[in-house]
Every structure is written in C-alpha cells, then in structure tokens.
C-alpha cells in the first residue's frame, strides 16, 4: 500500500481512531514523568537557582512552536503539489497548537528572563523573530477563518506558511546569524561542549518527547475534527441544493 493512501480521509480516520488512545496514554505518561522529574527531583543551578526548572517547559514549548510551523510547511507543500485535503486540514489543525506553544514560550521566557536578565523583554534577534512567528500563527488562523471556500483558503494559507517559514528558521538560528542579543545558544545539541549538564538534560529530553507526543495527539484529534467539519459543510451544501 502506498504512503499516499493515508491521505484518503476514510483511511486517515480509521488509522487515527486506532492510534489516538495509544498516543493519549503515552503522552500522559511521558509528560507526567518528565515534568515531575524536572520539577521535583532536579537540583537548582549554581547561577540560576530554582529558575532553571523553567527550562522543562520553556525549551520544549519553543521547540514545538518552531517545528509545528515546519510540519505545517511540509503539509502545505503536499497540498499545493498533490492536492490531498487531509494534508491541508492537518496544517490547519496544527496552527492553534503552534500558537499556544508560542505563547507558552514567550510567557515562560519573560518570567525566566526577568530575574536572570533583569528584563521581561528585549528586542533581541531570537526573541523578535519568535514573536513574529507568533503573529504569523495568528494571521494563518485568521486567514483560514476569513475565506469561505476551503480550497482557496488552503491555497492562500499554504503560501502564507511558506513565507512564515523564514521566521520559524530565524527563531531557531537567529543567534548564529547575528551572534548578538541576550538569548543564549542551544540548550541541547550534538556538540557535547554546549550541552547542559546531564542532571538537567535527561528530564529535559523526556519533557521534549512528552511535548512532541502531546503535539501529535492533538494534531490527530484536531485533524479528525477538521475532516468531519468539511463533511458537515459538504452535506449542508448538498441539502441546500436538493
């Protein structure tokens, strides 16, 4: 069976129906373990004190905020090239999750930044591009809502998604491009010298996996809703014509 057959709404509904309970249970388990481990069983940092515990929510939420947009970029390109409705609806379903994660990243960053940097906000390249990414999420959601014809909305939001991808990439790599600003480099990377200590890294990785699972679970759930909403729209239109 071809991979593209999962883009068939019926197949997607059957597959996601079977997968959702497993993803829900796994998300609850991994996220609980990661957050409890990080909050209750890790030491304070010698410089940052207990504020280091914010890392377990700030880094995973920012990671999802950026990568949700990249997932939307891939599904938008699939829509533009292959015209699979499920991929356009999956992008639409992911946007509010990305927006919520951007808000969490901004709030937790401000709350962490205030005691550490002495300011809630700084027009630093990374923070600014992340804020703009949040505004792109808002624009993307608004555009879907504003256009009645689903295919036209999918086309226009896909183009917006391609444009906004610049800011998703900038949010991740701004620090490398400009080498200035308050925000530090990656907390976790394959370069061992840059990484946080293992005592923080293990629960952080667990939280990142938990947030990824949460994202997948919510995307599955919300895409199912979008597929049903599209069917509702089609049935109402058919009733009107009859």
């Amino acid at each position, binding site marked *: 069976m071809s991979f593209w057959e999962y883009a068939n709404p019926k197949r997607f509904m059957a597959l996601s129906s079977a997968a959702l309970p497993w993803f829900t249970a796994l998300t609850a388990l991994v996220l609980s373990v990661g957050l409890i481990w990080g909050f209750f069983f890790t030491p304070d940092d010698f410089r940052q004190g207990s504020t280091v515990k914010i890392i377990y929510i700030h880094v995973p939420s920012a990671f999802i905020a950026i990568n949700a947009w990249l997932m939307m970029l891939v599904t938008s390109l699939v829509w533009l090239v292959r015209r699979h409705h499920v991929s356009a609806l999956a992008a639409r379903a992911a946007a509010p999750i990305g927006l919520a994660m951007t808000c969490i990243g901004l*709030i937790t960053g401000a709350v962490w930044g205030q005691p550490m940097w002495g300011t809630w906000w700084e027009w630093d390249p990374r923070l600014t591009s992340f804020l703009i990414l949040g505004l792109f999420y808002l624009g993307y959601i608004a555009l879907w809502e504003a256009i009645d014809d689903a295919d036209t909305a999918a086309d226009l939001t896909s183009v917006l998604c391609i444009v906004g991808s610049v800011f998703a990439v900038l949010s991740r790599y701004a620090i490398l491009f400009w080498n200035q600003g308050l925000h530090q480099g990656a907390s976790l990377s394959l370069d061992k010298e840059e990484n946080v200590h293992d005592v923080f890294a293990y629960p952080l990785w667990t939280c990142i996996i938990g947030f990824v699972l949460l994202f997948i679970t919510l995307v599955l759930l919300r895409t199912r*809703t979008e597929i049903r909403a599209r069917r509702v729209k089609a049935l109402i239109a058919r009733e009107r014509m009859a």
Partner: protein
Amino acid sequence: MMPDLGKYAVSVLSAYGATLAIVALLIWISLRRGRKVQDELRSLEGRRDDA
C-alpha cells in the same frame, strides 16, 4: 515533597501555572469542538438516512 524554590518561587510557579492553564485550555477547546462537530455530523447523516 514541594522543593524549596527560594526567592524565585513566584517566577517558577507562575511559569508552570501559565503553561498548565494554556495546555488545559487548548485540550478543552479541541475536545469541545470535536464533540460539537461530531454531533452535527451525526444529526446530518441521520437526516440523510431518513430521507
């Protein structure tokens, strides 16, 4: 059981509180809309079967 968060207790707890509130709101909105659309679809398909 509660760790000693020292002078940063307000910062840490408010960050966690805001995160949990936003995630809970997102889940609640997703489930509520899902149920609403599912009910709407059931009723439309029921009407269609009756006709």
